[in-house]
C-alpha cells in the first residue's frame, strides 16, 4: 500500500484540483433541490411568476456551471487514474527488464501478463473511480444531511432512520460478497487450470480414450462453479434492492410524517419536495458504497500482487563500483567455476571446479552429451546466471565488476532456442544496434548464410517473420539469430548449439565464413557435430559438470578417450545419413 501512496502523492496537485471540483459540483448539486423548494414555496404562497422564473433561471444557470465543473472533475480524476496506470506499467516494465533469467524460469508468462494487465487495471479503478467515489460519498452525506437538518431536524432524523441500519447491512453484505467473489474467482481459476491441463495432455486423453471421462470430470467442476456463481448472483441480487430500500423508505417516512407536518403548517410543501430531492441525491452514493468497497479490496489485492514483482530483487545487476574496460580484447578465463541452479544447498551442482583459459581470438569448442553442462557454461559468460563459486574473468577482470551493458555488448550470443521478434527480417537482424547501415545488415546475413534465403522471400528484408518467427524454418530462424549476433561485431561470439537445425553442409559453410570474417574474435562454440569444430584451438569435453578432456583435436584423438569415440560414432552417423 505504501507504493500506492507514492503514486497518489505524485499527482497530489491534480487530485487536489479534482477534489476541489468535486466539492464545487456537490455544492451546486445541493443547491438544486433548495432552489426547487424556493420556487415551489413561491408558487404555493402565490408569489407570482417573477419569483418562479427567477429560481428557474438560477437552476438553469447552476446546471450550466455544474456541467462544466463536473466534466472537469470527472475527466481530471479519471485521467489521473490513467496516468498512474501508465506510470505503474512503465515502472513494472522497467523492473522486469532488470530481473534475471532465473525469475522468468519460475514465472509463467501468462501469470506475469495477467499482473501487468488485470492487476494494473484494478489499481487504476481504485485510483480513478475509486478515489472519486471515496471523496464524493462523504461529501454528499455531510452536505445533504447538513442542509436537511437546517430545513427540519426532526424530519431529517426520521427520513434518515433507515440509514444506520443500512450501514450494518452493507457491512454484512460486503463481507459476504467478498467471500463469495473469492470463491467464484477460485472456482474460475480451477476451471481454467483444469482446461489448461486437459488440453496440454490431450494426447494422453485421446490415446486412452478418456475424452468422455475428462468431460464428465470437467462437468463436475463446472457444476460446482455454477453453484458458486449462482450463490454470488443471489447475494449480489439482494444487495442492490436492499440499498434501494433505504432511500425509498426515506421517501415513505417523508410522505407519512412530512406530509403531516405540511398539513400542520410546520413545513412548507417546498421543504417536502426539497427533502425528496436530497434523498434522491443520497441514493446513488449509498448504492455506490458496496461497489466502492469491492474496488478498494480488489485494488489492494492487485497492488499486493504487483508488489511481488517490485520486491523481487534484480539479482544480476551492475555492481556499485562497476567500471568499464577501456577496450575489450576478448580474453576469457574460467577459474574454478562452480554453479548450481538452486543456490540454497539443495540444488545439485551443475558445474564443478571448471577452469579454462581462452586467449583473445581463440576458439573454444564445448562438446559432451545432453545435460552435461555445456549450455550452462555459455550462459555464465554474459551473466545470465552468476557463478556460485570461482570466477569468470574477461580481460583479467571478474565479469561481475564490469557494467552489464558492456559485458553483454561484448558478447554476441546465439542461443539454442532461436527467439525472434514479430517484425521484419531487417529489424530482427538489426536488433542489437541503434542505427544499422544497410550494408552491415547484408554482410551479417551473408556470413550467417541467410542472404540467399532472404532474397527468395517475397518481400526480402522487409518480410515480417510472424510471431516468434513462425513463418521461417528452424534453420532459417537459427541463421537469423546468428546474423543478429554478428551485426554489432562483438569481440566475443558464443554459439550455443546454434546451428542444430541447419544441415551439415550449410553448417560447415557458415562456420568457414565465420572463420574468415570473424577470425580475430574469441569464439565459444557448442556444436553437436564434432566434425564442424575440429579445428578449434581448445576442445573441452564436458561430462556431468566436469571437464573430462581438454586439448586440441590432435591431442584429444591421440588420447583416444570420449572425444575420439564421439568422433568415430558421428562419422558413422554421417555416413548413414548420406545413404
Amino acid at each position, binding site marked *: 500500500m505504501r507504493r500506492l501512496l507514492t503514486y497518489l502523492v505524485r499527482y497530489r496537485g491534480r487530485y487536489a484540483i479534482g477534489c476541489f471540483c468535486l466539492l464545487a459540483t456537490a455544492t451546486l448539486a445541493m443547491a438544486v433541490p433548495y432552489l426547487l423548494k424556493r420556487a415551489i414555496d413561491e408558487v404555493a404562497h402565490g408569489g407570482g411568476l417573477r419569483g418562479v422564473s427567477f429560481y428557474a433561471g438560477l437552476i438553469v444557470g447552476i446546471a450550466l456551471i455544474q456541467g462544466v465543473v463536473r466534466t472537469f472533475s470527472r475527466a481530471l480524476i479519471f485521467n489521473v487514474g490513467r496516468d498512474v496506470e501508465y506510470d505503474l506499467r512503465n515502472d513494472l516494465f522497467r523492473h522486469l527488464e532488470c530481473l534475471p533469467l532465473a525469475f522468468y524460469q519460475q514465472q509463467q508468462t501468462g501469470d506475469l501478463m495477467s499482473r501487468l494487465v488485470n492487476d494494473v487495471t484494478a489499481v487504476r479503478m481504485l485510483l480513478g473511480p475509486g478515489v472519486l467515489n471515496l471523496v464524493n460519498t462523504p461529501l454528499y452525506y455531510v452536505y445533504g444531511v447538513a442542509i436537511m437538518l437546517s430545513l427540519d431536524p426532526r424530519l431529517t432524523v426520521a427520513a434518515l432512520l433507515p440509514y444506520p441500519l443500512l450501514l450494518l447491512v452493507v457491512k454484512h453484505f460486503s463481507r459476504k460478497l467478498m467471500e463469495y467473489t473469492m470463491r467464484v474467482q477460485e472456482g474460475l481459476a480451477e476451471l481454467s487450470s483444469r482446461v489448461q491441463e486437459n488440453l496440454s495432455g490431450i494426447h494422453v486423453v485421446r*490415446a*486412452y480414450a478418456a475424452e468422455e471421462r475428462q468431460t464428465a470430470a470437467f462437468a463436475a467442476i463446472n457444476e460446482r462453479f455454477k453453484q458458486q456463481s449462482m450463490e454470488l448472483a443471489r447475494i449480489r441480487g439482494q444487495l442492490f434492492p436492499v440499498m434501494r430500500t433505504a432511500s425509498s423508505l426515506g421517501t415513505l417516512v417523508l410522505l407519512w410524517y412530512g406530509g403531516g407536518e405540511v398539513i400542520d403548517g410546520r413545513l412548507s410543501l417546498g421543504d417536502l419536495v426539497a427533502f425528496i430531492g436530497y434523498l434522491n441525491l443520497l441514493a446513488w452514493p449509498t448504492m455506490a458504497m458496496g461497489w466502492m468497497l469491492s474496488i478498494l479490496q480488489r485494488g489492494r489485492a492487485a497492488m499486493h500482487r504487483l508488489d511481488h514483482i517490485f520486491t523481487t530483487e534484480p539479482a544480476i545487476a551492475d555492481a556499485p563500483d562497476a567500471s568499464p574496460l577501456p577496450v575489450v580484447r576478448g580474453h576469457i578465463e574460467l577459474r574454478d567455476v562452480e554453479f548450481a541452479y538452486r543456490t540454497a544447498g539443495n540444488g545439485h551442482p551443475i558445474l564443478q571446479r571448471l577452469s579454462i583459459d581462452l586467449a583473445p581470438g581463440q576458439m573454444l569448442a564445448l562438446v559432451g552429451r545432453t545435460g552435461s553442462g555445456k549450455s550452462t557454461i555459455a550462459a555464465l559468460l*554474459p551473466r545470465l546466471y552468476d557463478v556460485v563459486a570461482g570466477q569468470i574473468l574477461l580481460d583479467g577482470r571478474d565479469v561481475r565488476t564490469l557494467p552489464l551493458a558492456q559485458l553483454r555488448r561484448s558478447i554476441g550470443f546465439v542461443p539454442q532456442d532461436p527467439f525472434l521478434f514479430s517484425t521484419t527480417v531487417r529489424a530482427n537482424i538489426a536488433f542489437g544496434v541503434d542505427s544499422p547501415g544497410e550494408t552491415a545488415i547484408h554482410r551479417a546475413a551473408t556470413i550467417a548464410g541467410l542472404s540467399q534465403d532472404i532474397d527468395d522471400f517475397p518481400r526480402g528484408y522487409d518480410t515480417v517473420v510472424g510471431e516468434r518467427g513462425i513463418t521461417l524454418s528452424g534453420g532459417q530462424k537459427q541463421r537469423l539469430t546468428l546474423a543478429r549476433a554478428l551485426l554489432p561485431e562483438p569481440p566475443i561470439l558464443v554459439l550455443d548449439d546454434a546451428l542444430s537445425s541447419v544441415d551439415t553442409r550449410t553448417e560447415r559453410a557458415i562456420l568457414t565464413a565465420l572463420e574468415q570474417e570473424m577470425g580475430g574474435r574469441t569464439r565459444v562454440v557448442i556444436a553437436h557435430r564434432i566434425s564442424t569444430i575440429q579445428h578449434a584451438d581448445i576442445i573441452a569435453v564436458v561430462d556431468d559438470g566436469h571437464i573430462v578432456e581438454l586439448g586440441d583435436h590432435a591431442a584429444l584423438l591421440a588420447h583416444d578417450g570420449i572425444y575420439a569415440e564421439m568422433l568415430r560414432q558421428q562419422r558413422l552417423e554421417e555416413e548413414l545419413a548420406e545413404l
Partner: protein
Amino acid sequence: MSSARDQASPTSAQAPEPDLGRAYDARLMRRLWDYIRPYRRDFWLATACLPATSAFSLTQPYILKLTIDRFISTKQAAGLGWMGLLFGAAVVGEILFLYLQYYLTMLVAQKSLADMRVEIFAHVQKLDARFFDKNPVGRLVTRMTTDVDVINEMFAAGAMTILMDVATLLGIVGIMLAIDWHLALVSLALLPVMLLAINFFRTRARISYRLIRERIARINAYLQEAISGMTIIQLFAREAQAFREFEEYNDAHRQANHWSNIYEAALFSLVEGISSISFALIVWYGGRRILGGALAFGTLVAFIEYVQKFFVPIRDFSSKYAVMQSAMSAAERVFQLLDTPPAITSPEHPRVPEPKRGRIEFDHVWFAYKGEDFILQDVSFVVEPAEKVAIVGATGAGKTTIIKLLNRFYDVQRGRVLVDGVDVREWDLNALRRHIGAVSQDVFLFSGTIAENIRLDRTDVSADTVRHAATTVNAHRFIERLPEAYDDRLRERGSNLSTGQRQLLAFARALAYDPTILVLDEATSSIDTETEILIQDALAKLMANRTSVIIAHRLSTIENADRIIVMHHGQVRESGTHRELLAMGGLYARLHTLQTRGALAEMPHAEQSPVSTADARKA
C-alpha cells in the same frame, strides 16, 4: 523489435482483437437462445418481471402526486398513513421484482453458460491433433473462460436491462402524457437536444474506444513478446530501447483513454445538466399553470420524479451498448470454435472386428504433416498378434509418426493402416484407442492422486487392479514410500517424481488399461542403473502376450524384440531379427555398432538449454 511499432500484431496467446461489430446479431442471438431454451420457463418469468418492476417503479411518483394533491393540499392527515403504506408497497413490489428478475436471469445465464462450457470442452476433446498443432492452448482456455464470461456480462448488465429501460422510458412518456400532456411536452423539450448531444459524444467515444482497444492489444502483444524474449533483450543490452518502445505504446494508450474519459465525463455531466434544466422548465411552466389554477402541485412533483427516472437509462445506454458488442464478438468466437468440425471421427457404421487379436498392418502408407513434405513414404509392414517389434532409426526417420497413425491421431494421405484387418478409418475411434495402449516418451501426469493417474478417471478400474498394475511394473515400491501412497497428490503434475518413476507410472497406467496392442516410445533420457533394471523388467511384463510396437532406444529392448524394423528417411529399409539384420551388414548393423559403442550413444539433438525462452520451456 525496433520497428515493431509498425506491425505489432496481437500474439496468438491472446484472443484476437474483438472488432467493434454489431451490438445485436439475430443469427448469434438465435444460437444463444438454444442454450437458454432448456431454462426458458425461468427466462420468461424473468422477462415477465421486467414490466412489473417498471410498473411498480413508475407508480411511486404517481402516489407522491396523489398524496400531495388529495391529502396534503386538502389537509387531510387521516389518509397519509395509507398513502405511505401504498408507497411502501410499491417500493417493496419494485424491489421484489427487481430481485426476482436479476436472480432468475442470472440463474438462466449461469445454467446455460455452464452447458455451453461443457459443450465447448466436449467439442474440443473431439478435435484432432492437427487442430492442436495450430491452436495454442491459451487461446482455447480463453474461449472456455473469458469469452463465456463476457457473454454472461450481457445477461447481467446488457440485453435484459436494455429491455427494461425501453419499457421504463415508454412507460414514463405514456404516464406523463396521460397526466398532463402540456407539461409532458415541456418536460421532454430538451430530449432532442440531449439525443443529439449523446449521439455527438457517442460517436467520438466509440472512435476512442476502438483506439483504446487497438492500443491495449498492442501493449499486450508487446508485453507478451518482451517477456518471452526478455533474455534476448538483456543479452543485447537493449533494455533502454525496449523500454522506450513500450513507453510509446503505453503513452498512446493513455492518450486515447484521456480523450475517452473527457467524452464520458462530458456526456455524464450533460445528462445531469439537462435533467436539472428540465426541472427548471417544469417548475417554471408548471408554476405558471399552478398559479393559473390549471395544475395541481402533486403533478409538478411527480413530473420532477419522472424526469429523473427518465434520464438515468439514457445515460447508461452507451455502456450497455459496449457490453452487448463485446458479448456478440465473444459469442462469434465461441461459435466459430464449436463449428470447427473434428477432422477425425468415427464412421457412421463402424466395423468392429472380432475377435480382437492385435494384428497391425501398414499398407503402402504415405503421410505428411504439411503439404507434400512426406514424413512416411510408402511404408508397409505387418505385426502379427503377440509379436514384439522394435522400430529403430535416426531422429526424424518417422518412428513416432507410425504410432500417431496407428492411434489415428492423424489420417494417412495414401495407403491404409489396418488393425485386425480393418482400416483404422473404419473403426469406432474409441474402440480402436481402447484396443491400443500408448506410452509416450515424456510422461504426462495429471494433477490428482497417483491412483487417479493410473486409473485415468475410469470407474471400472478397482483399487486392486491399480495396485496390481503398479506392483507388476515395479512402481508399487516407490508409491508405498510416498506419504499417502496411492492417494498421494502429485505436485505440479508430478515434478516431484523422478523420470524413472514417471516412466513406471506410465507403464502402470498402460497395464491397468490392459490393451491388446501396446505402442511405446521408449524414453531417451538417462536413468540410473537401478531404475533402468526395474524399467526393463517392467517392460518385459508389460509386453507379455501383447502385440507390441516399440520405438526403441535401448539396446536391450531392441535385442529382446521378435523383429526389428529399421526406418530411414521415412522408409522401411530393413526388417528382421537381430541376428538376421546383423548378418545382413546393412543399416542396422551400422546402427548397432553406433549404439554399442560407449556411453555417448544419444547425441544431443535437443539439449535443454538454459538460454531458452519462457514459452518454449513451458510448452
